């Protein structure tokens, strides 16, 4: 009994398409009654791996053993059957149902019967046993994020889960709520449940887990007992050794303040602070890198500057034009910014959901920037066509044509070339990019780096949100690190080390946040 593990993964490989290997020959054990933290950078394959336990994906190769027996998990239902309960990052609850109704949703009970009082009783028992605070009759739409998460956890316990997988459960929680969650997790552990928690936050790993397993770029790096680990040792495992990329980084002649951000605070729809008192200046003639684990406020920061996020009172965003005119961007929407003559370009993370229109051909996507240039009621066409031809030629975009084939059907690299090409075509004074090389091959990535450097030398203030620390260190002049919506440091890229940034990325300043 003591010898069998709750879960054993053996040589698991998962590919997406021909090129992307999300998980490469991963073997991993989960002991009974332990909390295992799964650590890794974005895109290192943590969620993919867990989704194979949750029945969302099916492994291409490898075996899964549960309690020593080999199993095949083909669907979430199979996964439940083997006692695995997965709590996803995005909750899957029905808003108009109560907690109890959500908990039993989809369960095959006695035919046609819904014994609410017995459900309530069981829910209360579970809550008492592990220390949850839950009201079975509360409707989901009345709940806070943390309460919704509690419902999700009770749901899998109600179904008899012995193994719980929590995918970044603390990303949406306040520190107090996190403490409560950890207390509950320890109670579950005492009860013999095995738990896997995916998180980026090192102090949480050290706080709650017994053992840490690290993934990097789809590969299993190793595991350590938490008791013997430090933030430094975990960072090293997570980011690996620095690799020299040899990105050309010329020094710009004169740097002038272009964008000054002071005390910028942004809340999301639920009122959770996404940016907390962020202050920095972006200079014309430099590339300012922004590092941080996913969801640290990068998106909100760029959107706030672009006029897509309402700022809290007291926030300040000032733009200083190359001619030296100052204006405040607070309260401006994207059209106001265009009309004010500010040449602000933005390459958003979500190419089709924010930067481009997937069903339209290249020319019509270029038009998003140029269609207003024509006087009168007609939309510009000639200028967009000329620009499209130039981008295709200059950036070597591979496409059958520019005016028929929907851009969605081009490869990721070509799509990104069109988007970046469009955004730099207006000779922007501020150029913001979010994960501009995500999913691109090496050559295209370098082309993008060169284009950004070119813009910098022309005097634009380039803001580069990235995830690959090696690239950030070689491409940028300065790097600002965000953690939990706060600036945890601004470093000089020429002298900083990867470890330094890695530590800043996970240095969650708890006392400030509370």
């Amino acid at each position, binding site marked *: 009994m003591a010898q069998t593990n709750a879960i054993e993964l053996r040589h698991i490989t998962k590919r997406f398409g021909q090129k992307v290997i999300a998980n490469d020959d991963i073997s991993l054990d989960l002991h009974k009654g332990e909390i295992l933290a799964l650590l890794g950078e974005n895109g290192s394959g943590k969620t993919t791996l867990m989704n194979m336990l949750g029945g969302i994906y099916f492994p291409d190769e490898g075996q899964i053993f549960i309690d020593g027996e080999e199993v095949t998990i083909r669907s979430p239902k199979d996964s439940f059957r083997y006692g695995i309960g997965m709590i996803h990052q995005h909750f899957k609850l029905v808003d108009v149902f109560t907690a109890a109704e959500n908990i039993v949703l989809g369960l095959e009970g006695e035919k046609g019967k819904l014994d609410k009082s017995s459900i309530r009783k069981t829910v209360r028992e579970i809550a008492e046993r592990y220390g949850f605070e839950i009201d079975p009759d509360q409707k989901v739409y009345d709940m806070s994020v943390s309460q919704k998460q509690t419902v999700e956890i009770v749901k899998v316990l109600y179904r008899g889960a012995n193994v719980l997988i929590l995918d970044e459960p603390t990303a949406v929680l306040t520190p107090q709520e996190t403490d409560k969650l950890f207390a509950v997790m320890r109670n579950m552990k005492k009860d013999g449940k095995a738990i896997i928690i995916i998180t980026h936050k090192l102090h949480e790993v050290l706080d709650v887990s017994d053992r840490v397993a690290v993934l990097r770029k789809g590969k299993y790096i190793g595991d350590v007992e938490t008791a013997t680990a430090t933030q430094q040792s975990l960072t090293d495992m997570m980011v690996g050794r620095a690799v020299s990329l040899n990105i050309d980084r010329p020094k710009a002649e004169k740097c002038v303040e272009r964008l000054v951000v002071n005390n910028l605070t942004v809340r999301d729809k639920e009122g959770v602070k996404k940016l907390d008192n962020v202050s920095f200046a972006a200079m014309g003639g430099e590339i300012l890198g922004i590092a941080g684990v996913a969801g640290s406020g990068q998106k909100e920061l760029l959107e706030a500057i*672009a006029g*897509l996020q309402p700022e809290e009172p007291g926030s300040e965003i000032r733009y200083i034009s190359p001619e030296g005119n100052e204006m405040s961007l607070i309260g401006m*929407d*994207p*059209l106001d*910014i*265009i009309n004010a003559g500010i040449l602000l370009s*933005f390459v*958003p993370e*979500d190419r*089709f*959901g*924010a*930067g*481009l*229109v*997937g*069903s*339209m051909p290249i020319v*019509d996507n270029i*038009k*998003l*920037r140029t*269609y*207003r240039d*024509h006087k009168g*009621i*007609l*939309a510009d*066409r000639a200028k967009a066509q000329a620009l499209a031809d130039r981008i295709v030629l200059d950036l070597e975009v591979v496409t059958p044509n520019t005016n028929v*084939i*929907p851009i969605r*059907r081009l490869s990721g690299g070509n799509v990104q070339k069109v988007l970046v090409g469009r955004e730099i075509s207006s000779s922007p004074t501020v150029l913001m990019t979010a994960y501009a090389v995500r999913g691109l091959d090496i050559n295209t990535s370098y082309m993008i780096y060169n284009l950004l450097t070119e813009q910098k030398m022309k005097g634009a203030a380039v803001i580069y949100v990235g995830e690959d620390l090696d690239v950030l260190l070689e491409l940028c002049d300065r790097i600002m690190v965000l953690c939990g919506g706060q600036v945890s440091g601004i470093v000089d890229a020429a002298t900083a080390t990867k470890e330094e940034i890695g530590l800043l990325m996970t240095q969650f300043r708890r006392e400030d946040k509370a």
Partner: protein
Amino acid sequence: MIRITKRDGISSLLSVAIRVLAVIAALILCLVITFLFTGRDPLRVITEMVGGSFGTTKRMWEFLQRTMILSCIAVGLAPAFKMHFWNIGAEGQMLMGGLGALILMKFCWTIPSLPLLILMALLAIVFGAIWGMIPGFFKAKWNANETLFTLMMNYIAIQIVLYFCTIWEGTVGTVKIGIVNGKAEEAAYHKGWIGELFTGNFNDKDYMWLVLIVLVVVVAMWAYLRYTKQGYEISVVGDSVNTAKYAGIRVNKVYVRSMAISGGVCGFAGFLAVSAVSRTLTESTADGRGFTAIIIAWLAHTNPYLMVIFAALYTFMELAGKQMASAFQLNDYYSKILTGIVLFFVLGCEFFTNYKVRFSKKHKGGAAK
């Protein structure tokens, strides 16, 4: 073994061919069914079908008139549908437009004909536009579901129109359908009728103006959607609201403005129905065409020219069914059955434009995925 795969895209030639085949298959099925029910010579059945729309000059004008009104409503839906704003309130927008026209017809008939007609058209457009803008505004402000909202607005419009028409046409307490300015001995006789402007009297050729006016609307809408800034904004909003926002398009404004245009054109269709066709207004002036137009607009993929073709096809089937019903002593529902068959095929063929179906005799190799 049948394999169904999603198409990556489809050549326009193939997509047209699939649709034409679907229509032909539907017509053949109509013939077979009619033959089975009535035992008539299939040739005779075809003659009657075609005769329904083209048998006499009068029927031909009737066919054109119906096609054009239906096209006009469908074209009105185009900007909304292109924006992925499901406006199913064309029925109400058309009726409100008709009401706008009727008000002037009833109370301002002393104005000379041309200005009167222009004013009627304008007021109809304004009424329709307001009826369209209300759901647009609520969508923009509170993200209210436009489908339900526009649907409910239909019923409000129907009640309003019923109320005023009963009063103005002097048919309180009767089941008669009145005709505004319809008594030959009145001075107001024929005022506000399009035909009156050109011929001084009503005859079949009146519909010529209807046809011309609607064709202008069709071309104008095509050009608006394709070449103007606003048309471009509509396409962007229809594909991705978020991309539109990033590009500095004020999405809420686009919702309200496009719904004003959508409702306005539907209101204009109401004016045409009142002034050029029925010369009166009842709740049956729209006669469900506001709903039929939804199918037409959807089939045409918001292309105004295709809308005219589908409207013609629909009208042809409707009249063919009516003609056969009377020729073979079947009741009126027969035309609905035939129209239903054609719609079923035309809508059903969408499947084949989106998916490829392959039949393979056996598949090679071990376990298939």
